C-alpha cells in the first residue's frame, strides 16, 4: 500500500514540476533518432535474474517511459509515447516503405487498414521531410508527418483528427 501511494505521489510531483512537456520529461517527445538502448550490465546478469530495465513497472502508458498519465497527456498522448520508443525502427521502415514499426505508427495515427499501403508509400516518398536530420525528435517527426499527410488528398483526414 505504502509503496503504491509513494509511487503515485512521486509521479504527480514530477508531472507538476515539469508541466511544460505533456506527459512529463523523458516521455517520448524529446526522444531522438538513434537513441541508445538501455539494458542490464551483462548477459550473465540478464540471464540469471531475467530482470528487465523496466523492473517494477506495471502498466502500458504509466511509468515505463517516465510518462505521467494525467490530463496533459490526452492530446497525442499515446501516439507520442509509442513514437518516442520506436523512432529508430520507424525511420528504417519508412525509408524502405514497409515494416512493423511503420504499421504501428499508422495504427496509433488512426489510419484505417485500407489506407495503410498508401500511407507507407507517401511517407517513404517524403522520408527526407519527415526525418529531416539525424537529430530529429519524436515531436518534430510527428509534426512533420502531419504536415505531409495534409498534402495528400486521401490522408489529409488523418492529419486533422490527430
Amino acid at each position, binding site marked *: 500500500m505504502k509503496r503504491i501511494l509513494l509511487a503515485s505521489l512521486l509521479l504527480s510531483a514530477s508531472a507538476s514540476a515539469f508541466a511544460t512537456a505533456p506527459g512529463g520529461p523523458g516521455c517520448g517527445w524529446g526522444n531522438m533518432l538513434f537513441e541508445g538502448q538501455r539494458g542490464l550490465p551483462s548477459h550473465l546478469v540478464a540471464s540469471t535474474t531475467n530482470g*528487465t530495465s523496466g523492473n517494477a513497472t506495471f502498466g502500458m502508458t504509466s511509468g515505463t517511459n517516465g510518462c505521467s498519465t494525467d490530463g496533459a497527456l490526452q492530446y497525442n498522448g499515446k501516439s507520442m509515447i*509509442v513514437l518516442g520508443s520506436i523512432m529508430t525502427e520507424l525511420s528504417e521502415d*519508412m525509408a524502405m516503405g514497409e515494416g512493423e514499426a511503420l504499421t504501428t505508427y499508422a495504427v496509433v495515427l488512426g489510419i484505417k487498414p485500407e489506407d495503410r499501403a498508401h500511407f507507407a508509400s507517401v511517407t517513404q516518398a517524403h522520408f527526407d521531410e519527415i526525418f529531416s536530420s539525424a537529430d530529429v525528435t519524436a515531436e518534430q517527426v510527428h509534426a512533420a508527418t502531419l504536415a505531409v499527410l495534409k498534402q495528400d488528398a486521401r490522408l489529409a483526414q488523418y492529419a486533422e483528427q490527430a
Partner: protein
Amino acid sequence: MLRPLLLLALCSASTLVLSAPPDDSTLRSLADEPYWHSLGHYESGKLGGWRSYVDDDDFFLADGGEHDPAAELAATLAALYAPASAGDRHPQCVFPARTRWLRERLSLTDLPTVECKEFRTWYADVAPHSTVLVFPAAYLNSPSSMFGHTLLRIDQADIDTQGSPLLSSALNFGAYIEGMDNSVLYAWKGLMGGYPGLFSLLPYREKIGEYSRLENRDLWEYRLNLTPDETGRMLEHVWELKQIRFDYFFFDENCSYRLLELLEVARPGLKLTEQFPLTAIPADTVRAVIDAGLVADIDYRPSRERELLARTAPLESEELRWVRQLADDPQQLERDDFQALPSERRALIQDGAYRLVRYRVTGEERDPANAAHSYRLLQAINRNPPPRLSVERPVLPENGHESRTLQFGVGSRDERAFAEYGLRMAYHDLIDNLEGFPLGAQIEIAQLRLRQYEGNHWKLQRLDLAGIRSLTPLTPLLRPWSWQIAAGLERIAEGDGDDRLVGHLNGGGGFTWQLHEDLLGFAMATARLEHHPEFGAVISPAAGFDSGLLWRNGAGNLLLEARGDYFHNGEVRRRISLAQQFEVRDTAGLRVGLERSFSHRAEPETEFQVQLRWYFY
C-alpha cells in the same frame, strides 16, 4: 493483525443483515479446490500442510494466510463485504480474481458495489484479448542464455488487422534488482534467491529491443488458444500480483514456473506446474505448454544480428569489402566505383552497411557522429530500397533434447576396465545431440561421474560445478571472441596407475573459424588454478592452450581437441582427445571417446570409452 480483525468485525456486522453466510463445510471444501490454491500460489508443504510461494504480507488477508488456504478464503470472503467507501483500496478492487471466483462459486448476489477506478483504467489500457508465450532463443556467444527465459505477451483484440505486436504488453517475471551490486554479485544473487521476484508489465516493444537488439536473441512467439475470457481472468489475477514479492530462484521458482501458474489461473483444470517439482528450465516448460494443447500458431522474430548476417550472406567478398568501407566512412557512398555497381547490389550493400553500423553501437549511448553516419546510409537506402529481407526459420528451440542427462559408459584406462555412471542436471555440451541448439555452444551445470573399476573399486571421477564454452566463428563482418570457463573436481593421473582428485578453476579466450559449412576450428589461450594434494602450494597456477576441430557430420558431432597446461612448478600436462557422438534418437546418443594424456609426473595413459547418453527431464 489489526487490519484483518477490523475487516472481520466490519464484515460480520454487515453480513448479519444480508443473506446467511455459507457454512463452514462449504468454505472448507472450497478452500480445498485447486483453483483457490492457484490464486494463492499455494504448494503442499514437504511436511504436509500448505505454503504459498508469495513472500509478501500484502497478499494475505488472514493472519498466517500464507500457510492456511482455508483461513485466507474465509478472510477474503469477509473482506469482500467491507464498506464500498474504501474505493480503490477495497479488497474487491485489490483482488478482482478472487472476487470473481468467490462470487461465482458462492452465488454472492449481495456484495457491495465498488467502483475500482484504478483497476478498471489499467484493465482498459491493457485491453487483454489473447495471449502469446514468448521464448527468447539462446545466443551462441552467451551460453548462459541457453537456459532461456519465457514471458507472456498480452494482445489486444484484432491484433492482426487493427493492431500491432508493438502495441501489446509484455508480462515479465524476474528478479527485482535494486541498487548497484557488481555484475558477478548480481548473477550470484540471481541464482541463489537473493532478490525478490516481481511481475512487471511493460510495452512488448521494449522487450523486443532488449532481446533482439541488445542480446541478439531470436524470439519465438507461441500464440496460445486461450479465449478472451481466459486471458481476461488471468489479467485480473495479474493485478492481484502488482508489487507483490515472490521468492525468486533461477532454477525452479523462476519466470517460467510463475507463467505456468498464471496459465493455470487462466484455464482452470490445466496441470502444468506439477510437472516441474525440482527445476523449471524454460525450454521444458514450453514443451509442457505445447503438450497441453495450448499452442495455436508459432511466429518467429529474428535477432538484429541474424538479420545482418542474412542480409550480407548473398554478397561476394568484394561486396563485403564495400559493406565494411561504407560502415567505416559514409563518404564512400559518393565514390564513382561504388556508384558504378548495379543498383540492386548497391541496395544490398547499403542495407548491410547500415545494419553493421547499428550493430556496432548496440548498447551504447547515442553518439551524434554515428547518428549522422546512420542517417546518411538511411537516406541512401530510402532512394534505393533493398528487397524485403527474409530470414530462414531455424529449428524450433523446444525440439532440442531434454535438459537432464544420464550417462552410462564402459571403457578402459591403461588396461584397467571400468564402468562409469554419470548424471548431469543441465544442459548441453559441444557434441550432444544438436537439433535445436547452436553449434559451438556448451553449458553444463552440476555434473557427477562415478567410476567402478575392476574389483568393485569405486571412484569419484569428476564433479563439475559448471562448464561453459562459446565458440562463435569469425565472419567477414563480425569478430566475436570465443571463450570458456569451468570449475569443479576432476581426477588427474599420478603415475603407477594411481590418480588424484584435484579442484580446479579454468578459463580461456580466443577465436573460432568457420572452416567449412559444418566445420569449426578454434584456438584459445587458457589459464588454470588447481588445488592438487601432491603439489606444494595450495593453489597452483598454469597457463596453456586449448584448440580443436568441431565437425557436424551425418551421424552426429565430432570433436578433436588438444590441450596443454604448463604449471609454474614445472609440471606439464597435455591431452589429445577425439570424441564422436552418434545421434541415435531424440532422447539418446551414443558417444565413443579416445584420449591420450601426457604428464611429467606419470607415464602416458590412454583411455577409451563407449558411453550411452540418455536425455530426460
